[in-house]
């Protein structure tokens, strides 16, 4: 853009450039258009994200029926009822249990897989795509297929158990077995995805670090824990927080694991009902919007607390490593 510089008189901004006519509103344009560009995001988030969340707090302070509407202000009654509700604690415990059962092995496996993939493989795209495949499958399909695989009478898992001389398990019947089955679905879907995130981070670790460690005679295992893991700490923290948020909201997998689907309560004895399922039951099947709103807010706080605790914990552990 090197226009020949002849004599340059001092021009006031109103005077159009000699080279090209300047749009008179250019200044206004430059000042306000950026806000126009980012405004759709804030409008959409405000209307369908923030407003509902805040309004949930308002609803939770009322006796509010989904069909009949507001029935009067009740203060914190919904919350006191919730904290005395055994079903709530049951759902909370189930949620935490399934979150831990799925997330811990999942992230460890993802770390291992990423380490394998980080070693100059042939057919890189093929392996990476293979890892990601489960992630593009809908949760509904995953839940249905796994429910079949974990079936009591004709499921493959039970068939294999019997083959090696163990007893069949009625997967839906107990809490531990149902939690394991649901966690398997979550793990199947997300392990590869997290491995890809780790791989991306591992590839930006300076190779000289490994070379120096090799010269020092460090083992592969040692290098993994002393170089790779600390180097990709931000990504590990990121996946932990995201998995926490996702895990605390677990809904589709356990819902479809129940033979009654969305009209069930997570097993005959609520043995795998999660908090979101309980919210759905109260809000959309029993129409108690006020109570469901209270669950929603407590769930939100639980998510925040867990995300924060995990974040701090993981940071501490990683920095010791």
């Amino acid at each position, binding site marked *: 853009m090197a226009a020949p510089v002849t004599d340059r008189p001092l021009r006031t901004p109103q005077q159009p450039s000699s080279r090209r006519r300047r749009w008179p509103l250019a200044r206004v344009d430059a000042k306000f258009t950026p806000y126009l560009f980012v405004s759709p995001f804030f409008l959409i*988030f405000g209307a369908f994200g923030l407003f509902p969340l805040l309004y949930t707090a308002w609803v939770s302070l009322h006796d509010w029926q989904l069909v009949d509407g507001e029935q009067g202000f009740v203060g914190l009654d919904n919350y006191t009822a919730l904290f005395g509700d055994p079903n709530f604690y049951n759902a909370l415990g189930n949620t935490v249990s399934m979150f831990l059962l799925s997330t811990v092995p999942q992230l460890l496996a993802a770390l291992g897989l990423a380490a394998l993939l*980080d070693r100059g493989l042939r057919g890189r795209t093929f392996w990476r795509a293979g*890892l990601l495949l489960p992630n593009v499958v809908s949760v509904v*399909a995953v839940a249905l297929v796994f429910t079949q695989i974990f079936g009591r009478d*004709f499921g493959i898992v039970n068939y294999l158990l019997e083959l090696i001389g163990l007893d069949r398990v009625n997967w839906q019947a107990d809490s531990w077995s149902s939690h394991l089955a649901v966690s398997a679905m979550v793990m199947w879907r997300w392990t590869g995805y997290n491995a890809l995130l780790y791989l991306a981070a591992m590839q*930006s670790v300076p190779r000289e670090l490994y070379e120096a460690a090799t010269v020092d005679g460090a083992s592969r295992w040692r290098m993994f824990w002393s170089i790779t893991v600390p180097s990709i700490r931000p990504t590990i923290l990121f996946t932990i927080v995201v998995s926490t948020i996702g895990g605390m909201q677990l809904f589709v997998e356990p819902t479809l694991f129940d033979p009654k689907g969305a009209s069930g309560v997570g097993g005959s004895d609520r043995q795998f009902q999660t908090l979101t399922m309980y919210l759905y039951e109260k809000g959309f099947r029993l129409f108690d919007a006020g109570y469901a709103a209270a669950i929603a807010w407590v769930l939100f706080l639980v998510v925040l607390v867990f995300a924060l605790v995990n974040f701090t914990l993981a940071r501490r552990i990683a920095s010791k490593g």
Partner: protein
Amino acid sequence: MPTTRRPGFLVYGLLSAFLLASVFPLYFSFVVASKDNSAIGDKVPPLIPGGNLFANIARVFDTVDFWLAIQNSLIIASTVAVANVLLSSLAGFAFARLRFRGRDSLFLVVVGTAMVPTQLGVIPLYMLMSELDWYGQLQAVILPALVGALGVFMMRQACEETVPHELIEAARVDGCSVLRTFFTVALPAIRPQAAVLGMLTFMTAWNDYFWPLIVLDPNDSPTVQVAVSTLASGYYTDYSLMLTGATLGVLPVIALFLLLARHIVGGIMQGAVKG
């Protein structure tokens, strides 16, 4: 871990085992979908496809209005994908390359919104939708999903990496409006990443279940996922019918994925938080 030694048999073996585990449930779903229902009762679980696939597909279309479900899902997913690409690119471009007051703090808000779980607002959101008389209508699913933090984040990253400052400056000197600069300079440069975002949001919208289940009438205007899930919830579970539906619902996304796997994998790795 990188060394000069090429990975050996063990590495490929482990990865193959994992790949097998990734593919098996999909394959199994297809096998059951191709059998008649009695095969499920066999002593040994079926592993070889049978010849009943088309009969089962026909049964799926008889049991639920699958055409309508496909049409609904297509409308929802493509609108959401196009909107996300456009709106996220606009915002991402502004955050990466334009100067305005409060830019950094506004971007922090965007990142922060990713922490707000949308599911928690479902009750008022549902009330809002019925207030607007949108219950059972597709816009109730489309509007909340038009743009998201992840997309803005990805497109900002894309602009930072690929849109040269000099070109924007040049366009500005030439008297180009900001909007035109976006369309002529930024958008062409970030086209690959925008395409990836489009595909990812398409898949997410296609696979969504919770919100469509709540706000659409399952008997009247379901999406593919809701329709498939109703196949599973009868008094008597018809496994081959159910997994035929599941297979059908997964096929379009798998096809899209296999076609574009390289770009999608690259897109996800690029969107990652790097260490």
